[in-house]
């Protein structure tokens, strides 16, 4: 297997899914009508509801859904089960479930006056489903932010070459905000300056590696070279399990990332969060475009970086730890989330993109098209890890992506540095936004009951403290799978809601209903497996050894998993009853669509 063949498979998947399946559903089931007025045109308020060109919306939706998820998921799954199951799930997932979820999230909002999924659930399913959904979203954000902080802290501790680039990214983000909003500098000049300096910092990473290595060593010398915490990690020693250590340098980088996220959460959005995202966008876009085209060309120009070195299949149930289980079903289906299907997309599509859709004919290219492009991003991550070295997963990804970028003539050392930095940038910008959304969600959720939580500083601190607590469990793979379970469950609930809506308006519901059932059962099973693994592999073993920190963290993670399952069962039960109620009712007579002005 080589990268060219994989890219061709990816392109064929996109083409066939879009033209042979998605268009058919759009035409025959949803019956999108370009003459029907959309909420953006009906309720145009110049702010949230604003008709926008479909190309702009495509870029906006794609950028909002394509972040760290498709990259990290593909890396982890390829290392657990091999590249073949990962690529099969990516292809089948996006073809039959992923695009349908994204597209339907937009459709259901447009056909329901631009309401959010929770508002529609309140009306169509049951009032309590909205409250449950809020709680669900908070824990989903918590697990997501923790998983991202965990992986970033590990990469930054082990890769000192990335530090200069990330420090400069932060500095340039702050400078860009100042230039654009205070000094009123032109966008093009400010972009060239800030992105250029950040890029130079990233490329200069290998030269400054020694300085930051010494810095990490100095941090570790504080504790005399002994770890702060020792705990049993079932994923170490080739998945047989071994003692892991949290060194002061790891804690330092985890806290540094949280301070960055705290600033991004409480400062005005124009001051830090937005400009950092903007600078980060150009860095990651450059790396992804160079990498994707490089992956296709590598077979001809540099064949040695195009051959897969990772095994195609590693087994149905790679054991993780002494009592661990990691069955391909259901765990693969939550480990790779965003490149195949993701709940975040439907959630975002319903409140962000749907309110800007100008014409119903744009729903499919924007919603379905963006998801199919995100699948290509997941495929690129999978290719990078499949051709990379057999080292740590993120290291293998960076080596692989660096190889693809080196096809363009960039020396491998610098190309790998760029790939590492691109990975951290993509994860970092998402994490700061997650914390920002999480603190608002917490304030809204508990602000009336616990008034101090209304303060942005208190709510940000609570969110970050919870995330650090979860990160310190040390079992990152389980944390990632918990996030995948929550994310996919959100997708299943979105599809369930779409199914109920389709039944309520007398349309064929199979294209959404069957994937909803599959994802619902799979994700609940995966949350149970993750709880089992955490309890037997982390909680019990560390409890027996008298280690407190991982016991608290893994106990917390088990509780979150069980809470998500209970919430999903409530929504599932209400959804099923609503579905039966609408199915028994005679189909409503078709109502004439409101014509566009």
């Amino acid at each position, binding site marked *: 297997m080589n990268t060219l063949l994989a890219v061709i498979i990816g392109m064929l998947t996109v083409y066939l899914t879009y033209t042979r399946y998605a268009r058919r559903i759009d035409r025959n089931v949803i019956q999108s009508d370009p003459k029907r007025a959309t909420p953006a045109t009906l309720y145009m308020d110049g*702010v*949230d509801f604003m008709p926008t060109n479909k190309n*702009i919306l495509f*870029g906006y939706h794609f950028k909002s859904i394509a972040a760290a998820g498709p990259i990290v998921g593909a890396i982890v799954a390829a290392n657990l089960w091999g590249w073949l199951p990962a690529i099969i799930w990516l292809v089948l997932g996006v073809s039959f479930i992923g695009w349908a979820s994204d597209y339907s999230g937009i459709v259901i909002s447009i056909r329901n006056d631009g309401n959010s999924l*929770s508002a529609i659930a309140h009306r169509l399913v049951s009032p309590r489903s909205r409250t449950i959904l809020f709680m669900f979203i908070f824990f989903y954000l918590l697990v997501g932010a923790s998983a991202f902080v965990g992986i970033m802290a590990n990469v930054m501790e082990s890769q000192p070459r990335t530090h200069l680039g990330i420090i400069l990214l932060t500095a340039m983000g702050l400078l860009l905000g100042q230039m654009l909003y205070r000094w009123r500098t032109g966008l093009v000049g400010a972009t060239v300056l800030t992105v250029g300096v950040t890029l130079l910092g990233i490329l200069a990473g290998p030269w400054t590696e020694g300085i930051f290595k010494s810095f990490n060593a100095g941090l570790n010398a504080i504790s005399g070279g002994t770890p702060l915490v020792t705990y049993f990690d079932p994923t170490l020693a080739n998945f047989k399990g071994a003692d892991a250590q949290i060194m002061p340098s790891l804690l330092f980088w985890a806290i540094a990332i949280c301070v960055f996220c705290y600033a991004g959460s409480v400062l005005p959005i124009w001051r830090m969060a937005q400009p950092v995202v903007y600078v980060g966008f150009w860095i990651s876009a450059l790396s992804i475009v160079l990498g994707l085209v490089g992956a296709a060309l590598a077979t001809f120009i540099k064949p040695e970086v195009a051959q897969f070195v990772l095994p195609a299949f590693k087994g149905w149930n790679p054991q993780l730890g002494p009592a661990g289980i990691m069955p391909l079903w259901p765990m693969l289906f939550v480990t790779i989330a965003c490149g195949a299907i993701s709940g975040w997309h439907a959630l975002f599509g319903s409140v962000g993109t749907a309110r800007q859709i100008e014409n119903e004919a744009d729903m499919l290219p924007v919603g379905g098209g963006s998801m199919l492009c995100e699948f290509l991003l997941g495929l690129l991550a999978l290719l990078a890890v499949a051709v990379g070295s057999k080292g740590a997963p993120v290291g293998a990804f960076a080596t692989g992506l660096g190889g693809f970028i080196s096809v363009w003539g960039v020396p491998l050392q610098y190309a790998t540095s760029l790939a590492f930095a691109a990975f951290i940038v993509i994860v970092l910008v998402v994490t700061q936004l997650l914390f920002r959304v999480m603190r608002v969600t917490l304030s809204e959720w508990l602000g009336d009951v616990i008034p101090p939580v209304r303060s942005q500083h208190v709510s940000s601190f609570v969110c970050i403290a919870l995330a650090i607590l979860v990160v310190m469990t040390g079992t990152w793979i389980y944390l990632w799978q918990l996030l995948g379970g929550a994310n996919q469950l959100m997708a299943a609930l979105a599809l369930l809601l779409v199914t109920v809506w389709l039944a309520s308006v007398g349309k064929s519901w199979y294209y959404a209903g069957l994937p909803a059932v599959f994802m619902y059962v799979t994700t609940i099973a995966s949350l149970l497996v993750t709880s089992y693994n955490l309890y037997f592999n982390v909680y019990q073993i560390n409890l027996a050894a008298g280690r407190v920190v991982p016991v608290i963290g893994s106990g917390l993670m088990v509780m979150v998993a069980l809470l998500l399952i209970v919430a999903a069962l409530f929504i599932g039960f209400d959804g099923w009853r609503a579905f039966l109620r609408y199915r028994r009712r005679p189909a409503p007579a078709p109502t004439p669509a409101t014509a566009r002005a």
Partner: protein
Amino acid sequence: MANEAKAKKKGGLLGIFKDIVYGMSSHEMTRHAVRQRASMEHLFILITMGDLLGVPILPPYYSLRLLPYVTPQIAGWKRRMLRERDVTDILG
């Protein structure tokens, strides 16, 4: 009509590419700026609420001066204020 088609053709692939890049890089920033402007407009509406209702609450001279600028915003303001909102709205 011919000019319109010509302009469309001129945009062509480059125009589509520009739109997509703008959507990915800057559309979110534009939306945020628009939201900020809307929140300022809400304040103006609040200041002139008394005059809109015919009840001068604040010293009327200044609010009456503002009224011509506020009046065109009333329709959009009503839509924004009366729309049902929830936590997930912040994601958009």
